């Protein structure tokens, strides 16, 4: 088997992978190779033909393909080599990648690796809706692929379960193309997607959003003929008398995304049970030295801008590691406190400024996000709107870490 050596290997050619590759080259890594299993670079952005990407970094509302093109051009400019239709079958903790394509199997020995495999959609199985198993139950991303890249429509009368952003975007997309989107049902008391998508994708088209409501049964043996919706009470049971049948031919699921980390597990990378992604330090290095990660493989993002900023940090760190063989030790543990579901990174070195990303437990407004080390306040940030759907990204400058000792906690407070 052919073996080659590289400085930095990137797994995944979506926006994060491309951003990491470009950053690794710019940070001085000589030989950077990106491996993509699909037929084109850009990943999921290729099917996201709607606009609204890039408002944070590029200060304009780009469509997904336009956003991807920016990074494809940067890949060319910086001389990143890449391979398409190429699957990484295995990754060892020593950073040996077993790579498979129709040209053959080969081994790549990398000084540093950046894992940017993205995420996958939760499926019907994961939410266990009883009933028959007819055709016509699709996840939102699959419908988006078929509609926007293959010119195939999955149905005419659609019920959407889950108010995740992809589902909301597809509610509008299906409506624009002439399908009837009957409603969006969300089991939680608040939407899972961004408020702007509720406004632009549902309110603009008078599509009802039913909160505390879910699909309790799927009907139809061969193809979906309808679903039974019901309200869910505070303790998780069906509210009596609220069951109703909605006739439809398609059930579209937008019930969450899961970081894709099968390859990380093979390399024995430690994963967080909360984010589903690797545990990382402020260099975005995982528990396995020299293995870095960013983007949706690390944590599910709602903005590609933040995924790319994170990936640039991971790519630059990987280049540094490839050249120096090590990075400053990260020994300050970061813990989510009151009101915070998770914080990334989970470890920091305290020697450099850190962009923390986090999600809150429940919706709130006009509160502070407070960073503390044993009673000392490191930073306090006012937030007008707090929603689990919106990831917060807050920078703490390096000099602040000198205050206090021990672990760092992040909490929501007055």
């Amino acid at each position, binding site marked *: 088997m052919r073996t080659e050596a590289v400085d930095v290997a990137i797994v995944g050619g979506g926006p994060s992978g491309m951003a990491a590759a470009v950053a690794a080259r710019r940070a001085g890594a000589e030989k950077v190779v990106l491996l993509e299993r699909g037929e084109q670079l850009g990943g999921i952005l290729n099917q996201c033909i709607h*606009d609204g990407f890039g408002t944070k970094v590029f200060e304009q*509302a780009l469509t997904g*393909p336009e956003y991807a093109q920016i990074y494809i051009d940067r890949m060319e400019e910086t001389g990143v080599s890449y391979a398409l239709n190429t699957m990484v079958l295995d990754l060892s903790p020593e950073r040996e990648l077993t790579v498979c394509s129709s040209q053959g199997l080969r081994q790549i020995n990398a000084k540093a690796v950046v894992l940017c495999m993205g995420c996958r959609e939760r499926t019907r199985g994961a939410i266990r809706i009883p009933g028959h198993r007819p055709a016509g139950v699709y996840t939102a991303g699959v419908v988006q692929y078929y509609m926007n890249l293959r010119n195939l429509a999955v149905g005419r009368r659609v019920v959407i379960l889950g108010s995740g952003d992809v589902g909301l975007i597809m509610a509008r997309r299906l409506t624009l193309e002439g399908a009837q989107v009957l409603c969006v049902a969300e089991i939680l008391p608040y939407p899972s997607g961004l*408020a*702007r998508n509720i406004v632009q994708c549902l309110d603009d088209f008078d599509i009802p959003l039913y909160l505390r409501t879910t699909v309790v049964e799927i009907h139809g043996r061969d193809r979906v003929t309808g679903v039974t919706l019901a309200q869910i009470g505070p303790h998780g049971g069906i509210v009596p008398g609220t069951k109703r049948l909605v006739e439809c031919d398609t059930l579209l699921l937008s019930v969450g995304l899961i970081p894709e980390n099968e390859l990380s597990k093979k390399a024995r990378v430690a994963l967080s049970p909360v984010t589903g992604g690797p545990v990382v330090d402020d260099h975005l290095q995982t528990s396995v030295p020299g293995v870095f990660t960013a983007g949706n493989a690390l944590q599910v993002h709602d903005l590609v801008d933040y995924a790319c900023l994170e990936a640039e940090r991971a790519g630059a760190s990987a280049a540094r590691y490839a050249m120096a063989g090590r990075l400053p030790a990260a020994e300050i543990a970061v813990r989510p406190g009151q009101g915070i579901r998770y914080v990334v990174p989970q470890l920091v070195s305290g020697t450099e400024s850190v962009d923390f990303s986090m999600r809150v437990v429940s919706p709130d407004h006009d509160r502070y996000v407070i960073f503390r080390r044993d009673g000392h306040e490191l930073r306090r940030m006012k937030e007008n709107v707090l929603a689990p759907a919106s990831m917060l990204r807050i920078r703490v400058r390096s000099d602040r870490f000198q205050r206090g000792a021990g672990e760092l906690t992040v909490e929501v407070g007055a």
Partner: protein
Amino acid sequence: MKGKFVCVVCPTSCDVNAEWNETELLSIDHAQCKLAWEFIRGEIFDPRRTVTTSIMVDGGELPLVSVKTRTPVPKAQVLAVMDRLADVMVRAPVDIGEVIVPDVLGTGSDVVATRKVKHKG
């Protein structure tokens, strides 16, 4: 007049209280940035949306090319734009930024391609 709006300019999605009269926006509060003013004035007096959709491609590596209106069109005309674009077909190759339908429905906005589509094969 008074009302509540969600600013959709950026993902922060500020909840804004606004006050206006027949001709102008008088005040807004709770917005995190100044872009909300223009957006809410638009929502009150001339609501507009960018239309993003796809157009059929003949002889391309993909059957569709994604497109957008270069600038937002009046919200009331969104579905009319969709109807106008329904049976448009272009020949591959298509370049990113290429004008597919100039000045769609007299809105002053061009429909442009948002990706490249090469020839098949």
